[in-house]
């Protein structure tokens, strides 16, 4: 810290500490705001599904869309995504479905 002050990067050690604290607080605030936004979106979607149960996308649909957005190899194998969902169950995580497909394709080679 003294070197930073000697090199005129900061006026004092206190200034350096306060800058560090400010940056840390700004980072934490950004994380918290992002979390609040995520929660608001989740709440909006869940309320929509409550009012319109048929509007909820299936796990296979979400997995296929995730694969397309991520350029995942499963994107061109909706049949395998369906097989993965049958094998893993409707409450599986999307990433597990995609990993199942990837593993299946690797085993074929």
């Amino acid at each position: 810290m003294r070197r930073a002050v000697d090199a005129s990067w900061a006026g004092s050690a206190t200034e350096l500490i306060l800058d560090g604290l400010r940056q840390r607080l700004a980072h934490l605030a950004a994380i918290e705001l992002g979390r609040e936004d995520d929660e608001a979106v989740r709440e909006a979607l869940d309320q929509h599904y409550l009012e319109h149960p048929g509007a909820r996308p299936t796990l296979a649909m979400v997995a296929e869309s995730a694969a397309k957005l991520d350029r995942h190899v499963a994107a061109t194998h909706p049949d395998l995504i369906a097989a993965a969902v049958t094998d893993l169950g409707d409450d599986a995580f999307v990433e597990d479905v995609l990993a199942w497909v990837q593993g299946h394709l690797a085993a074929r080679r």
Partner: protein
Amino acid sequence: MTTVVFDSEPVAALLDVRSSKHREVLSYLEADRGRRRRRPGGATFLVPSTVRVEAGWDRRRPAAALANRLPIADHHLDERTADIAAERRHTHGVAIADAHIGSIIESMAAHDVVVLTSDPADIAAVAAGLPVRIIRV
């Protein structure tokens, strides 16, 4: 960083719970929710303001309540993007909304741009060889 741009029909499907494509459009937003859980950040969803006009997304209407609560930001034409859109419309003879999408593709050429559309041929034409991923909905 992935930017997902909505074309008119996906927007219309999002607004109408009776649409056969409603669930499919929501699945992209759900997929992004999952990605955000796994790693920081996620896709940015954009709706060109001209697409909103074409698809009838009036944010003041009760029917837009769900769409308004989703993280889909309006993209407005500015001086530069309006010039690009005008040039694309003139060159390719496409709808104003498609020309607007073309201007987004060009102005964000350094990004990973994905367009959700029911008409991949029109978007491919307006992209004119620029890097874009087109997903048919």
